[in-house]
């Protein structure tokens, strides 16, 4: 079995593969453009032995204005996983469906449609409710949706509930005389 880096370089002749990053011995991440993604997935599955789709998920980079889809593939023979990133525009995000390649992908796409509002045209039962029912807000997993504020507004808490910030609490407890200084983490 070819080294995954070599494999990606071989595929790089036909695909614009970038940002190859070896996280650990059995996990490599890379990025492809949106248009080539499904074609590459098909080739990885059929030619390179990456037959198992572990999951499909999305990362919301709100400050960059993009969604990054992550397709996690696994090759059982090489015991190696590939994480494929695909960047989408955050507004009106749309992506080709891969339910023809893996059956469970249809469910992941339903979830992404509901949680982020990403469209996957052609995916079966895409617009049916998945987890939520009668949801009337923006898709809840998007970063701009504030779940705590929404919860307090709709399901308001019982009177008398106090919230304590652990950081402030511990600071008061351990260093009663300490004054804040701009330090980042560490001891």
């Amino acid at each position, binding site marked *: 079995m070819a080294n995954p880096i070599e494999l990606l370089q071989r595929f790089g002749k036909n695909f614009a593969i970038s940002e190859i990053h070896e996280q650990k011995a059995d996990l490599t991440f890379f990025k492809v453009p949106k248009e080539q993604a499904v074609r590459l997935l098909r080739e990885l599955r059929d030619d390179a032995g990456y037959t198992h789709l572990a999951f499909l998920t999305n990362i919301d980079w709100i400050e960059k204005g993009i969604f990054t889809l992550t397709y996690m593939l696994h090759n059982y023979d090489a015991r190696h996983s590939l*994480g494929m990133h695909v960047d989408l525009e955050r507004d009106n995000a749309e992506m080709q469906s891969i339910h023809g390649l893996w059956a469970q992908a249809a469910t992941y796409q339903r979830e992404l449609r509901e949680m982020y509002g990403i469209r996957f045209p052609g995916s079966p039962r895409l617009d049916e409710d998945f987890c939520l*029912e009668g949801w009337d807000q923006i898709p809840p997993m998007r970063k701009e949706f504030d779940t705590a504020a929404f919860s307090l507004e709709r399901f308001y808490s019982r009177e008398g509930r106090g919230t304590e910030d652990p950081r402030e609490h511990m600071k008061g407890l351990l260093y009663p005389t300490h004054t804040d200084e701009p330090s980042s*983490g560490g001891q």
Partner: protein
Amino acid sequence: MFEPNPPVDLSSGKYLKLWQGPQHPGITGNMSLELTTCGDEVVDCKTHVGYLHRGFEKLMERRTFIQNFPIVCRIAVPEPTFNEYLYAAVVEELAGIQSPERAEWIRTLNLELMRLASYLMWLGGIGAAFGQSTVYQWTVTHRDYILDLFEEMTGARVYHMYIVPGGVRGRLPEGFEGRCHEVLNRVEKLLRDVEKVLFNNVVFKARTKGLGHIPREMVDPYGITGPNQRAAGFARDLRKDAPYLVYDQLEFDLITATESDTYARAWVRYQEMHQGIRMLRQCLDRMPKDGPFQARMPNVLHWQVPAGETYAKAECTRGEYGYYLVTDGSEYVRRVHVRGPSYTHAIALMEKLAVGTNIADIAGLMVSLHTYPPEIER
């Protein structure tokens, strides 16, 4: 690949729409199956989930790394420790923390005990689904003895919050090994009884053999993992293929079967329980008795994990359980995705397998896939 079930004309009067769940004792957890039946035969099945959706991934994004640790275990009730371990594993990997060897052994012990408890519950479930409630009573009671061990070890029966990033929360109590051996002997005796009552039973065989057959070529396109996959003849187990913790130092056999029906899946799980007991005994005997059980951690109240992303997975009772963590260098998680094996088993696979079975077999089929809804909807 996705192949939709053939469409049915509900107005023809030939079909009956039937909801199994969420208020139905034959369903695993809180989910529902929307069955279309023709006589006793199921012609279409749709899984509905989301009754347990709490938005974990969203909640974790607004909590610090250490604040996440007590909530991750609540994602899956029957096996909370796998969540704890995997969360700890991804955070440790990105933060560059190495948990000490003794903690690794204790984690393995914890995970294997959990696996045994979960399998015992499952064994009762499959008995109950096929009308053998005696087995259900026996196994759930024996699961309780394991929960007692957990209580001793971690202080809690169900949600342990024991495996923290950096190690475990405490050492094993005094005399724990002896009591653990005792419980293992008891469970082993129970398993022998269950084999006689359930697996050798002619009625059980008649019900389960040939039910819910998963063809070999369906395994990868449907993302089937775990015992469901091993029952179809694939010798794949993350504990062997990508050993995590101390599994590379433990001796155990990979159990496979070829029939790939409900009976084969039950048998594979039953055999794995014996392997689990074998591993637990090795753990107890070979575990380092002293040494640190927690790595030196940064101040968790100001804990910033460097930017990065990783995916860790472990073999839970149902298959590949994974955590995908993305960090951006702040004190908060950027994105965490929980990959539960039931995701595909309960939806894509179940909708396929249910077609053509008898209504009476739906509950048993569902249990035989060992699905659990909270890890689907989180």
